[in-house]
């Protein structure tokens, strides 16, 4: 058995961080975000995914420390 929260947490943290960084770097590249109606959607999606990933990791930490 593996605690699936750990891979989920790690995957979302990595993908989230990747998107977040990409969003920060391309923040001023207006042409890139024409499709998404001028919204830097990578920044937002990345931030939420990173948050979700860290929350999953925290949950599994908490469950393990209780055992």
């Amino acid at each position: 058995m593996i605690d699936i929260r750990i891979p989920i947490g790690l995957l979302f943290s990595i993908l989230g961080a990747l998107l977040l960084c990409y969003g920060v770097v391309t923040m001023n590249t207006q042409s890139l975000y024409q499709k998404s109606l001028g919204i830097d959607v990578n920044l937002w999606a990345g931030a939420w995914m990173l948050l979700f990933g860290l929350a999953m990791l925290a949950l599994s930490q908490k469950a393990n420390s209780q055992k």
Partner: protein
Amino acid sequence: MSDGFQLAWIDYAMMLVYFTFVIGIGWALRRQMSDATAFLEAGRSMPAWVAGIAFISTSLGALEVMGMIGCGAKYGMLTFHFYWIGAIPAMLFLGVFMMPFYYGSKARSVPEYLKLRFDEKTRALNAVLFSVMTILVSGISMYAIAILTEQLLGWNFYVSLFASAAIVLIYTYLGGLSSAIHNEVLQFFIVIAGLLPLVFLSLHDVGGWAGMKERLGPVVSSLPEHFAADTWLTTWRHTGRAAQNPMGIEWYGIVLGLGFVLSFGYWCTDFLVIQRALAARSALAARNTPLIAAIPKMLVPLLIIPGVISVWLMHTPAEHFSILDRGVTNYDLTIIMLMRRYLPPGVLGLGLTALLASFMSGMAGNISAFNTVWTYDLYQAYLRPPSSDAKLDQTHYLRVARLATVFGVLASICTAGVAAEFRNITDFMQTIFSMVNAPLFAVIFLGMFWRRTTGHGAFAGLVSGLTTAVLHHGLTEPAGSVTMFKGGWLHVVHTYPVELSQNFWCAIFSCSTSAAVAIAVSLLTRQRKPNEELVGLVYSLTPRTAATNAQWYERPAVLALLVAVMGTVLSLAFW
């Protein structure tokens, strides 16, 4: 059509990271696969929430994701019926009433339950049908994803076919059901994360919820069918007459066909989903699996909203949005066209990862259900029965199960190749699959709740139900049908407005015939099984066990009530 989809390095990076994790999970679990029980049943060790998410993830395959967004464009919010009336009541029924018998009987598969409850021939028939259908469906979903990547990304059809099949094969071969289930949980979250940006951007584009109503109204009421302006944004309001809604069916057809026969046939008897609940670590966790699954299932319709909005996009020339494929409307393209329209590099990679993830969870689900039925219900039952050496048997069956996994993937690839030759076969196979499930539900339901149901009765019920479904398909066709795959190959006695209503009524007829024949034959034949053999398999002969020491939130009755209330509130809100 391959223009306009330029992938950036970031998009490839997203997919690569995802693949690494998927294979990594299989790799991490490989050492625990010491015997067939661990490989095929995941050692019955899953927590309820893991089994629950896997339970809905298997039915969130690529065909379903592409299909549900397409249905959003085609039927509007009437598509929600597939998730609410078409899933929730059946999932509640499974968790509250049926699961104790599936799990408690110690059957390792649905065919095996049929053997314990009825007889060998009923099991054999179901096992063979199920194995064949599972492989066909998995191959067809593989074909769908390969054709999509070819058309839109310009990837070679066979290269993407082999690459995606290879990844699924690696992780199911290494870690068996356990790996499939863990990955399904991961894939579920990825599918949600990948589709959410589309929901937000499309809603933002039309000016939010109020803007959506404002823009869709005129478009919908100007369609040639004279629908009411709010047809695409309501679920039950326009189901009084079939002509009032794009599904072409009345409310009682929806309730009976989708809400009762098709959904109970799928959620309560399809081994693909039941297998997830059987992998749960206790009888209580198994009962809670479909109940917990029902909560996210109810919220999946939110992901359909971009599809609903696309009816406005495609009927507004200034938006330049088209889902035409060589001049023919192809609703399966809706999701990819939406991605192309709204997603910049970065989230585009995430969206494509979500599609690949949905494809993999659907396919791995089929493969892991196939190898179990093959190993236990065909190979072990008829080709090589267990010997006196239990330990040796376990390693032998593990090897067989692994070979079955490889065979399943290869056979799926062949099916995908066949599907590429005959494009119309895809919908046809889906239709056949529901033909197999509807009679099966009638038989299992009778078996669980009516002690008198006999093996001959069950077998006759299955055969007659299947025959009815085939005849119905041969005698009716949907309006405007041009191929015999859609029906009417015998003689057309009735024409349905759309395929969907043809499917619904087909399921209703085959399920009722199957039930009637099973009852009649059961009354005419003798029950060979003594009561003692039916304990744990039949409702009236099984002592009730109350979940006394469980927390309140772990009790099936409490969870079921919560889900029922939530479902009712949602249905009323979107009436």
